[in-house]
């Protein structure tokens, strides 16, 4: 295992970059966890929905003259409505049914969103504008990308806002209750079906944030979020599929870990980044079947 030319400056650059990558995984992983917690569905289409809403943002900016931040917030609102709508119309009829069927439904959604994006906007790769200046900060002689820092900050703010919502508002409380126990919540007056729809809405909005933050680097195309989704699944499971904190932690760790390993460990190189990530995931699961933060259902038989 050789380490190529180490400097502290570059290490710091890589850490920031890794956290930015991790932030993107974290928001998508959080979306996956929210949906799983509320409706027990593993949403394979999360990445494609994120990609689709990012295209909407792009269209707002390119064809309708919006500037970035207005487009950003409008897209979040649209994504929210889209997510809630999908839950209500497509997922609701299948809830409580066979998990295989649900997987197929989300796969169908994956395929449809992918196709729609390619159809409406053509598969050509597009440049997605970044709200952050392309210049870099210089901290102690090292160039730190403004883009990376911006992504980290935006993601953190989004996560904190969401946390505050769940923790401090009545609606948030209602959603948490509905996730923990739909029947008792219903008896207490919580409109459980609405909570499900809202869960999907929030998840979709999170996905949109994830997409809009990563698009400037990955370039907008219908396949943009596919690899991100894979990493986000890993992150969600790493943290514990039902733990929002775990998802964020998992995402950041995974982003940081793969970046640093890919840069500094020769054997891993870059072809093995994904397998190593999953290798680590499987290892963690063997030792802690509930993920890093989650609680495993007691299954000692």
């Amino acid at each position, binding site marked *: 295992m050789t380490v*190529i030319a180490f400097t502290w400056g570059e290490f710091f650059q890589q850490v920031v970059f890794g956290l930015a990558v991790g932030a993107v995984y974290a928001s998508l992983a959080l979306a996956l966890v929210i949906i799983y917690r509320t409706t027990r569905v593993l949403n394979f289409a999360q990445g494609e929905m994120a990609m689709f809403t990012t295209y909407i943002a792009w269209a707002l900016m390119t064809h309708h003259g919006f500037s970035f931040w207005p487009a950003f917030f409008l897209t979040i609102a649209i994504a929210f409505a889209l997510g809630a709508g999908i839950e209500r119309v497509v997922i609701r009829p299948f809830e409580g049914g066979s998990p295989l069927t649900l997987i197929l439904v989300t796969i169908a959604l994956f395929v449809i969103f992918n196709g729609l994006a390619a159809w409406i906007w053509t598969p050509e790769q597009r440049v997605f504008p970044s709200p952050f200046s*392309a210049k870099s900060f210089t901290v102690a002689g090292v160039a730190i990308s403004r883009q990376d820092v911006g992504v980290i900050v935006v993601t953190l703010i989004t996560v904190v806002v969401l946390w505050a919502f769940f923790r401090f508002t009545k609606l948030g409380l209602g959603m948490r209750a509905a996730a923990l126990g739909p029947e008792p919540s219903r008896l207490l007056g919580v409109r459980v079906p609405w909570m499900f729809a809202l869960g999907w809405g929030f998840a979709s909005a999170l996905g949109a944030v994830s997409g809009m933050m990563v698009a400037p680097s990955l370039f907008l195309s219908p396949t943009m979020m596919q690899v991100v989704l894979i990493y986000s699944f890993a992150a969600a499971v790493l943290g514990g599929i039902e733990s929002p904190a775990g998802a964020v932690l998992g995402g950041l760790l995974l982003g940081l870990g793969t970046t640093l390993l890919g*840069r500094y460990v020769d054997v891993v190189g870059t072809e093995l980044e994904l397998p190593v990530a999953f290798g680590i995931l499987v290892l963690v699961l063997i030792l802690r079947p509930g993920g890093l933060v989650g609680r495993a259902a007691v299954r000692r038989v």
Partner: protein
Amino acid sequence: MKTLLVTGVAGLVAALAITIPGALAGTAATPGVTKTSVTIGTTMPITGPANFYASIGAGMRAYFSYINARKAKSDGKRGVYGRQIVFKVEDDGYNPVNTLQKTRKLVEQDHVLAMVGGLGTEAQLAVRGYLNQQKVPQIYVSTGSTQFGAEHKQFPWSIGWQPDYLQEGIALGKYIRGRNANAKVAVLYQDDQYGKDLLGGFRKTAGRMITATESYPVGSTAVSSQVARLRASGADTFLIIAIPGPTITALVTAYRIGWRPTLLVNSVGATDVWITAAQNSAGSPEAVNGIVTTTYLKDPAQPNYQKDPQVKFYKALMAKYLPNANVNNSQYYYGMAKAADFVQALYRAGKSPTRASLIRAVDNLTYKSPWVLPGANISTSPRSPFPMKYQKYARYNNGSYTEFGAMQKIR
């Protein structure tokens, strides 16, 4: 019990449904040729990580549409000797296994006369054995893989078109050696035959100057770690052997981490459209200015070609057949140039072309193509199955490429 009966009946019905259409399909005397049409096929990555190459297929189709509509000067007939060219494009998603399936479909179900312009080094190598076994011409593959020309004797039905990667690598190596003998070169390359081919050529002339090489897997655009490692090797020159997606990422990442090397980009990733995208994404022309690459066709985006009659003709065809496409994307031009060469060969295959007469025509095609660099021509012979033998250096600056240096004869 009844279920089983229903099963049996359903199975039988299905079997018949599959069988009957197949049994009814006949085969033409010469596959792909009728009195009024010639059918050819190709596989293109319309979906998947290389889908920006779909524009090549679109360019080819546009040119064939033009040929089908215009009256030839020689005999006044539309198409080639009065036959309309039917161009079947199948999507293989840049996955060689799909290429195999689709190629088989085109040969065995659609009975094409030949496969023309198939895209992708691995993809076309994967079907080469099959096509040669079936004696189906695999003409002008859209890849610079040296193997097609170099192994033409073993695979006489397969031939390439553009200057091969080995020669391109050699040329880029010569360039940097001539410019700065003490340069330290870091190389990013796609981990497949195409990448290794080009790198191999570069090593022949500038191998001693390489400080580090990093590869990335096909289909990925995540090359930031590689770029970081390459920079850490202390190089002052960066050679990018990649398709457009990762090329852009590499350029932008290098810029963002504060690296300003001399930039060499292979022709596959150097199309203007993408370099402009990289410049926009990085936010500064510094990220791309000075890129040196090789070129072998007139570049429709270059200012000095705007008055060239062929480029004007190209733009007219684009306006007619692909009005919503980006005219400056020289991949459309590439497709048309290739299609034009094919049409020339088809004429020379005679009034009743066969697969054998077609490949013979291709093997001997020599003419002054108006599409290639001024002063170059298409020249093919059985001893030298490399239709394009000329290339030039070009440098990118402030929005477009400019050719420089003498024309190089590479084969």
